[in-house]
C-alpha cells in the first residue's frame, strides 16, 4: 500500500520522527498517566506532534501506539478500549500530516516477562499483539515498527502477529542494546547476530535498533548489523543518555551532534534514521538535512 519496500529497494534514505513520550510530557502528560489515553481524550495533541515532525522533514511518523497493547493498557484499566485507543492514534497521526507522509504503528513491549523465566504465558502476549495490530491495521498504516524490544522472544511474537495480519505489510523490528564486553547485547543477553538471524528467518523486512544509546554508540550498533544482514536498517538513537539536572533528566545531544553521526549511519547503509527519547523536531530537521545532502547548519544554542 505504501510502496515503502520499493523505495527502500531503490536505496532511498528516509527520515523517521523523533520522541513521542518526552513530547507528550512537555504537553502535560503526568507521571504515571497512560501515554496513549491522550489519543481518545485529546487527539489534537498527538496530531500536533505528528505535524511538527512531518514539517521538520520526517518521511515517516509513528502513531502514539507504543504502549497500546491490551496487556500494557490493563495497568490503567484501559484494555477494554484497546481498539479505540489504537485507531484514534493512527487517525491523529494521519490528521497531522500530508498524504505523502507515511504513518507507522509503533508496537512496544508489553512490560511482562515471558515464561519460562518470567510469569507470563507467551500465548497471552501473542494474543495481545494480535489485538493491537488488528486495530491499527483496520485503521490503515504504511509500516509497523516493533521497537524498544529487549527480549527477542517477545519481538518474535509481535513479528508473528504482524505477519499473520498481512504478509505484504512492511514490518521493522528494532531492539534496544547496551554495550557489554562481548559486543552490544539486549538486557536479556541477545547479541546483534542472533537477533538478525531470528528476525530475518521470521520475515522482518527492516532490522535495527532504537533507544538505550546516543547516536555515537548507535553508529557502532549499525556497523555490527551491517556485517550480518543485507536487509534495510532502521536506527533511532536517543538524544544522548539522560543527564540529571536537579530532579529532572535532560537529554543533551544537540541536533548538530546527531546529524554528524547520522552521516555515519548513512555510510553504514542505514535506510531509515529517526530519533528516540529526548529528540525533538529540531533533531529531525537536522537529520533531514543530512539525507537531502544539504550542508549542516551548526546549532550553537546552548543545550
Amino acid at each position: 500500500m505504501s510502496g515503502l519496500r520499493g523505495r527502500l529497494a531503490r536505496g532511498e534514505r528516509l527520515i523517521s520522527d523523533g520522541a513521542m513520550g518526552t513530547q507528550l510530557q512537555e504537553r502535560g502528560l503526568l507521571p504515571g498517566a497512560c501515554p496513549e489515553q491522550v489519543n481518545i481524550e485529546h487527539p489534537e495533541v498527538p496530531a500536533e506532534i505528528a505535524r511538527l515532525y512531518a514539517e521538520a522533514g520526517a518521511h515517516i511518523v509513528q502513531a502514539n501506539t507504543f504502549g497500546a497493547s491490551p496487556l500494557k493498557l490493563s495497568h490503567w484499566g484501559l484494555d477494554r478500549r484497546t481498539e479505540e485507543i489504537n485507531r484514534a492514534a493512527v487517525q491523529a497521526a494521519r490528521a497531522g500530516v500530508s498524504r505523502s507522509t507515511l504513518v507507522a504503528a509503533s508496537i512496544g513491549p508489553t512490560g511482562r516477562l515471558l515464561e519460562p523465566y518470567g510469569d507470563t504465558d507467551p500465548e497471552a502476549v501473542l494474543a495481545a499483539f494480535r489485538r493491537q495490530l488488528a486495530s491499527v491495521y483496520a485503521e490503515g498504516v504504511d509500516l509497523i515498527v516493533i521497537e524498544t524490544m529487549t527480549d527477542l522472544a517477545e519481538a518474535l511474537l509481535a513479528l508473528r502477529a504482524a505477519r499473520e495480519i498481512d504478509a505484504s505489510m512492511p514490518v521493522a523490528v528494532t531492539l534496544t542494546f547496551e554495550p557489554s564486553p562481548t559486543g552490544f547485547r539486549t538486557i536479556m543477553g541477545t547479541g546483534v547476530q542472533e537477533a538478525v538471524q531470528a528476525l530475518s528467518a521470521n520475515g522482518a523486512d527492516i532490522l535495527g535498533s532504537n533507544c538505550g544509546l546516543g547516536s555515537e554508540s548507535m553508529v557502532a550498533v549499525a556497523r555490527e548489523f551491517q556485517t550480518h544482514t543485507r536487509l534495510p536498517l532502521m536506527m533511532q538513537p536517543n538524544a544522548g543518555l539522560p543527564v540529571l539536572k536537579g530532579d529532572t533528566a535532560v537529554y543533551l545531544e544537540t541536533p548538530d551532534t546527531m546529524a554528524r553521526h547520522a552521516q555515519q549511519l548513512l555510510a553504514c547503509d542505514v535506510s531509515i534514521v529517526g530519533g528516540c527519547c529526548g529528540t525533538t523536531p529540531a533533531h529531525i530537521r537536522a537529520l533531514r538535512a543530512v539525507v537531502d545532502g544539504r550542508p549542516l547548519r551548526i546549532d550553537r544554542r546552548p543545550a
Partner: protein
Amino acid sequence: MTVLAQLAERLQQGDAPGVAQLTRAAITEGVEPRVILDSGLIAGMNVVGARFKSHEIYLPDVLLAAKAMYAGMDLLKPLMIRDGIPSRGRVVMGTVQGDMHDIGKNLVSIMLRGAGFEVVDLGKDVPPERFIQAAIESNAGVIGLSALLTTTMPGMRRVVELARERQLQGKTRVIVGGAPLSREYARDIGADAYCFDGTSAVDCVKSIFGVS
C-alpha cells in the same frame, strides 16, 4: 558429589524440579535447613550471580536459577519458621509513586529472594507513606526504591525525608536504583546507597545485613 553440591549445581542450571527433589532428599537425610539454604541454594545462587556479573550468563539464566531457588525455599521455609531460624534480612521493595514500570523492581526482588532475603514487594505506583508504614510493620532493614521515569524520581527524596522524620535512620536503610538514576542523585537526596543493577543491589543488601 554431596547432596548439597548437587543441589547447588541443579540450581545453577535453573532446574526447579531437580532442586525441589534434592532439597527434599537433604531434608530426609537430616541436613539442617539453614545448612541446606546456605551451602546448597545460596552457594549455587552466588555462582550464578558471579557468572552474571562477568557476562558469562544473562538475565534469563538468572531468572531461571531464581525460580529453582524458590522451589527449594518453599520446602525449607516452613522448617525454618518451625525452628525459629531468622531470615537473612527483610527488604521492602517498590516502584515509586506515579511510576508504572515494575520489570526492574521485579528483577531486583527476584535476585534478592534468590540471595535468601525476605522481600515485601509493594508493587508499583507506591506512595511514600506506604514504604515507611510497610518498613515499620515488617521491621525491614532495607527499603528499596525503583524508578524508571525521570519525572517520578522526586518521590524517592520524599521517602528518604519521611524515613528521617519517623526516625528510621540506623534501623532501616533506603537504597535506590533505576535507569535514570546516578550515584550523585542518590547522594543528593540522602539515600543510603545507589544500586546500579540487580547484582549490585544484592551486594549492597548483603553488606547492609553483614552476610556473604
